[in-house]
């Protein structure tokens, strides 16, 4: 139980929740605002992480240039996906996005020379040379810790991630109240009606995808910085569905529901790691790992049953057509 009382552990949980917040904000724009069913969101996080790492290690870019370039690459990925598939009906679009995220992951696994292959970024510079993209970030993190007199590097990361996550949440929350956001919401409600009022629905959907993907790319950057190493296995489809859980848990269509959902999800997910009391002690550790997933599932089902609109959602909106 000692881990549960350690600040370090909860700082870690907080950092991951912050990264999930940024990732899920992208889905909030795409689905919560514009009604786009994207089940391949994690692909754009992968594009962000990999673009940054590859530019630093292989092209010798400064991390400070590579990071914005990676976000642009993620957004461009969203635009390319949109140009190819947005004319599909919603359900077909959803299927294509799943395929896309798997394609991205398979490319990362198999294009060894570009991505380091299944061994991940440790192998980026080739087999002989251990590679590291994270030096500049580490120095920045140290400087930031010192400047703010923070207790540890973990706390420094926690502050950085959440400063960015909350700033982005505020921007997303403001954007929906603009005339631009009004058009997005109208598209979510009825595309043809929106078209008939003179709005270029395709262009707005493309913008939503580009922004959502850029947010996933930013999440990818923090993921890469936090773990200092990653491999294609880190971008499995499961991560997309974590983001969906957070979105549904928090409340669809409300920006501030995203950090709340991410924190609740993070605490449930991390807390269930430490079932070191009866009845869980009746099982061995391998069994407990599965038990944990079952408990998470039950908690989510319970939440959906009793608050189907999410923690911050308005229930009456659910019954409106």
């Amino acid at each position, binding site marked *: 139980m000692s881990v549960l009382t350690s600040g370090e552990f909860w700082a870690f949980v907080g950092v991951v929740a912050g990264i999930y917040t940024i990732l899920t904000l992208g889905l909030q724009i795409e689905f919560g605002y514009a009604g786009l069913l994207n089940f391949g969101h994690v692909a754009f996080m992968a594009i962000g992480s990999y673009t940054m790492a590859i530019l630093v290690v292989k092209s010798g870019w400064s991390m400070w240039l590579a990071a914005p370039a990676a976000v642009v690459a993620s957004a461009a990925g969203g635009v390319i996906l949109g140009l190819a598939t947005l004319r599909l009906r919603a359900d077909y679009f959803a299927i294509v996005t799943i395929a896309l995220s798997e394609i991205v992951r398979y490319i990362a696994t198999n294009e060894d020379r570009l991505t380091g292959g299944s061994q991940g970024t440790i192998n980026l510079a080739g087999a002989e040379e251990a590679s590291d993209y994270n030096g500049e970030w580490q120095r920045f993190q140290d400087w930031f810790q010192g400047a703010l007199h923070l207790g540890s590097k973990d706390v420094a990361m926690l502050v950085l991630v959440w400063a960015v996550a909350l700033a982005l949440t505020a921007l997303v929350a403001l*954007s929906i109240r603009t005339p*631009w956001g009004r058009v997005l919401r109208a598209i979510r409600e*009825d595309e043809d009606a929106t078209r008939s009022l003179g709005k*270029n629905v395709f262009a707005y959907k493309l913008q939503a995808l580009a922004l959502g993907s850029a947010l996933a790319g930013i999440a990818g950057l923090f993921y890469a910085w936090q773990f200092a190493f990653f491999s294609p296995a880190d971008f499995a489809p499961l991560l997309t569905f974590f983001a969906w859980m957070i979105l549904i848990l928090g409340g669809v269509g409300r920006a501030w529901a995203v950090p709340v959902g991410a924190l609740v999800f993070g605490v449930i997910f991390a807390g269930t790691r430490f079932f070191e009391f009866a009845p869980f002690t009746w099982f061995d550790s391998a069994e407990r790992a599965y038990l944990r997933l079952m408990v998470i599932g039950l908690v989510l089902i319970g939440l959906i049953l009793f608050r189907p609109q999410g923690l911050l959602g308005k229930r009456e909106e659910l019954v*409106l057509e």
Partner: protein
Amino acid sequence: MTNLLEVRDVVRSFGGVRAVDRASLDVGAGSITSLIGPNGAGKSTLFNIVSGFLRADEGTVSFEGRRIDRLPPHRIAQSGLVRTFQTARALGRMTVLDNVTLAAPRQPGERLLRNVTRSRATRLRERDVRTRAHELLALVRLDGHAHEFAATLSGGQRKLLDFARVLMTEPRLVLLDEPMAGVNPVLRGELLEHVVALRESHGVTVLLVEHDLEVVMGVSDQVVVMSDGAVIATGPPDGVRSDARVVDAYLGVEA
């Protein structure tokens, strides 16, 4: 009278079926024109072609002298030709007011990057748009519902909301797809008054689809009758009603 809309020899097939077969019609500026015909006559298909929601296989559509048959729906709407749908399309989880303000043209704040700068032009335009939206909601007597979700409105109120929304776009030609379908007789009368007011008070030309000739007799300047994808008669209501082909193809069946 000059023609605002000219449809020439439009053809559209679905599989082997010619839904619209060389249909031509004119809508005079300032007129109320009714497009009638039995179910399956091709009215809705022609309507969708004119508004850009479907492409014609052959033929041309011109609005104010410019070809529009290759334009996407939003460009046609922007040019001043705005349609409604047979079932009123209220945007349910938006407020009634937002439903109307959405329709406003020339809002620079609809461009994403304009919002980064929070431009003054956006705010000024939004103020005007809101004032106008409240006026239009008062016109259709929905001003009391401005801040409710549109999904809470009744079917008839949604039809009225459609009117307010269409007027917000500042149209020159409005295409109404069976505006009186599925509403009670009292509201039907009210809607008909709004159709007339479109022209009388707002100077808008109207083309409306209806399958019941009697409904539109009193208000139409011109009636276009379709049957089996073709236009079989065009003229003033009285003339059309006594046209033998119309009686055979259409009125005979229904009466």
